[in-house]
């Protein structure tokens, strides 16, 4: 599902990031790469989403939330 549909409090895993070279690189340096697990802090719906990733809070704009595909973390607990 697109990131825009994730609920606050959920643990999600990034599956695929679409979009340009620069966009993906920007996300990577902020710690968001496919396979990484993050917690959803809030979701504006429609609007920006705040994620907790590696201890920091990352705001992802409305437009960008459609470009990131995620799924719920399977079974295992959130990595500390």
């Amino acid at each position, binding site marked *: 599902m697109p990131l825009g549909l994730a609920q606050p409090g959920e643990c999600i895993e990034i599956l695929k990031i679409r*979009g340009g*070279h*620069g*966009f*993906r*690189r*920007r*996300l*990577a*340096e*902020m*710690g968001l*790469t*496919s*396979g*990484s697990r993050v917690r959803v*802090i*809030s979701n*504006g*719906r*429609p*609007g*920006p989403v*705040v994620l907790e*990733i*590696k*201890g*920091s*809070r*990352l*705001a*992802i*704009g*409305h*437009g*960008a939330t459609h*470009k990131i595909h995620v799924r719920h973390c399977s079974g295992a607990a959130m*990595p*500390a």
Partner: protein
Amino acid sequence: MDRKITVALAGNPNTGKTTVFNNLTGARQHVGNWPGVTVEKREGNREHKGTSIHVVDLPGVYSLTAYSLDELIARRFILEEKPDLVANVVDASNLERNLYLTTQLLEMGIPVVLVLNMMDMARSRGYQIDPEKLSSLLGVPVVPCVASRSEGTAEVLDAIVAAAEAHRPGVSLNYGREIEHAVGSLEELLRDRPLPHRATPRWTAIKLLEDDEDMIEGHEEITGDAAVSEAREKSLAHLKSVYGEEAETVIADARYGFISGLMKDVVRKPSIERVTASDQIDKIVLNRWLGIPLFLAVLYGLFQVAFTLSVPFMDWIDAGFGWLADQAGGVEGWFGALLRDGIIGGLGSVLVFVPVIFLLYIALSILEDCGYMARAAFVMDRLMHKIGLHGRSFVPMMLGFGCNVPAIMATRTIENPKDRLVTILVNPLMSCGARLPVYALLAGAFFTAHQGLVVFSMYAIGIILAILLAWVFRKRLVRGESGHFVMELPPYRMPTIKGVAVHTWERGRSFLTRAGTIIFGIVLVIWALDYTGALEPIGRAVAPIFGPAGFGQWQSAVTLVFGILAKEVVVGTFGTLLATGEAGIGAALGSQLGWTPLIAYAFMVMTLIYVPCMATIAVTRRETGSWKWTFFMIGYTLILGWLLATLIYQIGRLFVG
């Protein structure tokens, strides 16, 4: 003899890097620009144990790709200027993300000292960090500190001196078998070729695999080499087939893999992460319904506070200049007139606004330092998205309340060139500190009961127009895909008095120097032109244009013409032309020029919108690199300002006669 070493200070934004820099260098700083660009460059010197340390503060970056101007500057400095070592400031409470930059510094093969800042924050979150273990795993010295309380500065200096002596690079990251193989074969090829910027073969090989734009496009001598480019393409194709991803992503993952391994060994976190106070506050601040009203309330409160608190200070300054004018009362002839109307009247009417401007800057600095500014961008993202921009454009707009010049420079963080252009074009509509004296003066004189509200309305009109025009420009003139908004929300922090003072001074300093130099000069020229009778013809020639807007008197026209040089001049010019100090301008506008509150309001709107000041025009030219867009900005603001002022005056006249 003294040893001399150069240290580059690198780190992510929001890590307290500037505070560390201030602690390291004390007052001996120099602020200039990086060559060829308008990014500020800070340098400072420090003697420590017989070593003279030259510290250069690099721009705050998350990474050393060549993706943004800041990153390119940081990277080029390290490669080309070859500092003896890099002091890498990291936020101990957010270590994992911060270490990403560290891994890239290590790759460059330069000695690194890791400055583990904000240890207090990490402790309060229950993190236990083992600096010694971190040091042994990274192969670099690690120094814990709390820069905001000046703790650990001596230890950082000790470590810098010792590390410069030892001159040892840290560990070399292992990217896993496949990548290492690709890096190794490229490295072999590069070994006996001339490399750019004195980079190491390994680093160059990694950049080639990462598809780094600066490396691929900027270094024909490497990429043009058939053997190298063939090996590179073969490796990239192979890696893609093995991992199903671009090599770039695999390398980023490998860096994070290395970091998360480190974290397991070095950091103990409480088993259940507490919901932080920041998150609690954000629940309210970022709430989809409360967010925007709260933002407007914050803005309104900010102006109210700035105005209310500044009143007594302004009265003192005004009284001071009044006393000066009385003292000069006995001086005869043209010199007396110059002293009273030119110098004391003109300068006094500008300087009297120093308190309100500084209070406004203090408030802006507090908002920035405590972390709310990033939230404002976030809250506005949804609205900004509707007009074809995104939240990131909002921070430069907020900074425009201080001064449009640094605000336009701050648009550099917007990666998409079209988003950036539109953000620059509408920035002058964000009412800067220099326009505040005009509002304060006129609102004080004509709207005594609703001063704060009237001034706030100017800011609101500016924001609304900026948003509307951005939408129009994005739809009609600068069409195309908009970039994406990705931004870190730093945790809320209690702003320190020192931090706020430094930021306020950085903003306010330019107002004072401008008041003392440019504005003073202009006011003198205006006085001289007026004294010799040359001003009136100029004013009379231009004045009819403003007739429909209500302020068609030659004096008003003159102030607007000269206001283009610097907006503060509008008030000073009135002071000179009406031969009165700040306190008397309001009354004189009414009695000598026949102004009504309606005219005053129309004039305020004109001052808000029409032609940005010279400094803003110059920075627009520099940042857009285009005269066409610069003239477009001048043109649209002039027409829009005139239209709106005329509309307000003409429609208003129907009601208030």
